[in-house]
């Protein structure tokens, strides 16, 4: 009998397998598709590569605009796609190497629980282990109106797989994924319309940030329709006609393709959960306690299949928590969602940690809010990216940093400073008293902190 079997080889699953193996446990990892999971194969990683390439195109366009370069004559999307798949290939190979190095046995199959210590694999094999971690992730949520064929009606997986660009693309859902594709596709010359049912894009983010991003998108030619409802009036192999209801007006709009990105649902079916008594919530998420244990003591669940924020870095932290628990160590604190950053990689980037201004006010907290425009940092002007701001929300009584929100160039890199500050419980005075390298865009964070303690300089 093994010490541990991990079902699912995404960022949570493979990290759990490696960490357990490093501690001397005998470990098997079962993956039905490809190591690395959605994040590496059909999510974060290939999209980040496409974003990078889109940004290069956009930078070339900037040079053309000032006459410093001649027209590039368009892009070859097929080659761009190949490049993004190369990146994926390189990283999955890396994970395979790590599995081998740590002597984790990898099974290419799907699995379901037969008993709390035994899994039946789709290839007929059986795996027995004292502890089992379910890390099966999530899949795109489908809308019944939009039958997915990955040709005309696409999920994020389909759009990352296709080798040609549409002329007109509708994106339904302006969450992180919708906004990232709106950026990529519009930069590559696609005519993009972004539809969101809620009254602002990035519904989980601070309202100021959402508004700034929507305004920016519109200034770059993306049509943004918040508070809108859409349904297909006809879908053919050539395209889709959408009935759009927006600001009290109805219209019919034609697109080559529609990308449906309205959230993700947990992959908790067909795991044999009922058979062994692992409880799930009405939403399908597996119920767990603060250390990842399910209702069956030796069965754990981590990542998107549970109710915690569907982010790779959350799954990785949970993997470490569960392995600590199995090993009987207790170095990590339970996941505190107020310390989990979110990052959206469109241009301008959006990143945040902690609560939004709205949430802070709704909770009745007495807060102070400061904003510092990135245009106040010399570097932002120098590199021609002055758009955006840093917004800090602090508790009036204690100065505790309760929320931090950034929109602008490299926001996803800058947010980590504030995650560190918030996790270490630093106060604005600590940040304001630090010496930041000059010129950097990060100086905006120090400036914002200075504003919190009423010592602003560049504002």
């Amino acid at each position: 009998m093994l010490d541990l079997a991990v079902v699912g080889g995404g960022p949570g699953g493979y990290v759990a397998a490696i960490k357990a193996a490093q501690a001397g446990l005998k470990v098997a990892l079962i993956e039905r598709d490809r190591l690395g999971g959605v994040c590496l194969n059909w999510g974060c990683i290939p999209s980040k590569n496409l974003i990078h390439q889109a940004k290069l195109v956009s930078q070339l366009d900037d040079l053309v605009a000032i006459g410093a370069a001649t027209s590039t004559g368009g892009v070859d999307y097929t080659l761009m796609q190949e490049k993004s798949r190369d990146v994926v290939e390189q990283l999955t190979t890396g994970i395979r190497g790590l599995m081998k190095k740590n002597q984790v046995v990898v099974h290419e199959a799907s699995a379901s629980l037969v008993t709390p210590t035994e899994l039946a694999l789709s290839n007929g094999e059986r795996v027995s282990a004292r502890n089992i971690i379910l890390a099966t992730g999530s899949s795109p949520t489908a809308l019944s109106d939009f039958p997915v064929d990955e040709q005309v009606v696409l999920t994020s997986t389909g759009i990352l797989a296709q080798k040609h660009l549409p002329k007109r693309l509708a994106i339904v859902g302006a969450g992180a994924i919708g906004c990232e594709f709106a950026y990529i596709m519009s930069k590559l010359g696609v005519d993009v319309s972004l539809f969101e049912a809620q009254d602002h894009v990035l519904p989980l983010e601070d309202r100021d940030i959402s508004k700034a991003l929507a305004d920016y998108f519109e200034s770059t030619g993306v049509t943004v329709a918040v508070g809108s409802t859409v349904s297909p009036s006809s879908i053919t192999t050539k395209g889709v006609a959408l009935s759009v209801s927006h600001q009290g007006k109805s219209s019919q709009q034609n697109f080559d393709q529609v990308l449906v990105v309205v959230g993700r649902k947990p992959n908790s079916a067909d795991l044999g959960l009922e058979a062994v008594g692992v409880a799930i919530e009405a939403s399908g998420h597996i119920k767990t306690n603060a250390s990842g244990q399910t209702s069956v003591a030796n069965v754990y669940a981590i990542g998107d299949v549970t109710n915690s924020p569907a982010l790779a870095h959350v799954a990785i932290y949970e993997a470490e928590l569960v392995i600590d628990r199995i090993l009987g160590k207790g170095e990590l604190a339970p996941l505190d969602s107020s310390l989990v950053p979110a990052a959206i990689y469109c241009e301008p980037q959006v990143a945040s940690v902690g609560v939004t201004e709205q949430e802070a006010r709704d909770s009745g907290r007495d807060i102070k809010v400061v904003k510092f425009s990135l245009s106040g940092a010399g570097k932002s002007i120098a590199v021609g990216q002055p758009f955006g701001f840093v917004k800090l929300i602090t508790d009036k009584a204690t100065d505790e940093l309760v929320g931090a929100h950034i929109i602008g160039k490299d926001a996803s890199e800058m947010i980590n400073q504030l995650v560190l500050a918030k996790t270490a419980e630093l106060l604005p005075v600590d940040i304001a008293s630090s010496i930041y390298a000059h010129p950097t865009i990060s100086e905006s964070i120090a400036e914002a902190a200075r504003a919190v303690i009423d010592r602003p300089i560049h504002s």
Partner: protein
Amino acid sequence: MSTDYVMPKLAMAMNEGTVAEWLVSDGDFVQRGELLLTVETEKTAYEVEAPDSGFFRILVGAGETRDCGTVLGVFYESVEALTAPNADSQSQTPSAPAADTPPRDTNATVSAGRDTVPDKATAAQNNVVTSSVPVTTGRLKASPLAKRMAKDAGLDLHRMTGTGPGGRIVKRDVEAQLRSQPHIRPQSIGATANQEDVLATIPITGMRHAIASRLIESLQTTAQLSSFWESNLSRLLEVRRQLVAKEEELGTRISVNAMLVKAMIYGIRRVPIANSCVVDDQIRIHRDVHVGVAVSVPGSTEYDSGLLVPVLRHADKLGLAELDLAMKALVQKAKDGACTADDFTGSTITFSTTAGLAPPGHRSTPVLNLPNAMLVGPSTPKDKPWAVEGEIKIQTVLPVSVTFDHRALDGDPAVRFMNAMHEAIENPNLLLL
């Protein structure tokens, strides 16, 4: 190596608690910060977090009641220790040889890199999370936020156990300490060697800081005006004597204070703006009367005092006996340190008496209790010659001082309120209304 888990002291007035439910199973590995058990007191139920990590042995079953500080369970570092034949609470096996306990993993210990001196007196006093809270004498590891919060609350970080990375004291540790000890005594009492003439040093932190900052804010942001008058108390005292004779039937010995609050409510009926607050550039005149009652409580030393203003809700809906009982219960609760934040919010007018403490006939200029626009401050009555129906008689006379916010009330409504209250004190029949 094991750590005892004792019945925590969750409120200043708590002496014992009942284990309502264990939220972990016997033998479970419990992670620091996870919910461990539900403790019930006479007043409320608390969900309590685990202060430590380890394999947990339950020693006291659900439904059992124990004094604060009594061992309820033990955290063990390993399964082996948990299942060892003699595994038991440290406090129950004091003779266990030290050599039997292996050194703790330096990454995991709370006191890594620090000199610690067990301080039994502190442990008994604190009773916070473990049976022995060490006093740190070496370098202190605490987050800037924890330091700020501890300073504001007057807590001594050296007497706290850190649960952050590497034993660092973090926000949740300070919060846990605040929950367990709402009114901690500052540690720096007493003269230091080179300051022999200083009887005591009282840091302006915690309650003292709250009093200081609120009163300064009151004086600096309002237009305060104080006024005085005297009322003949003789008839009210006669009515009270009759009510006191009925003490058994009424279930309480009616106090003069309760009758004065009634008179104040009569005044509010006649002049509603006396029952108002100034908030966000608005004067809010309230229909319901929630009386902030100033209560003197012990300070951090024998020399100073503390002041709390808990709120007597819906005073206008209470009959005289109910009002008297409710006010006495509220004052006792405040003195017991059992009030919660909710008890201190929402007053619409303030009642602050110095009767019995101040010399007879005493007057003052009380400072407004924000955001209330009116404060009524009666003091100690005085027997003096008084004209009664054209004759000079010796009467008991009550001095009353009020302070009001001139932003909300001008002289006209303010003096009409005072006059109505005066009328009700001198004609206690009006208190029946």
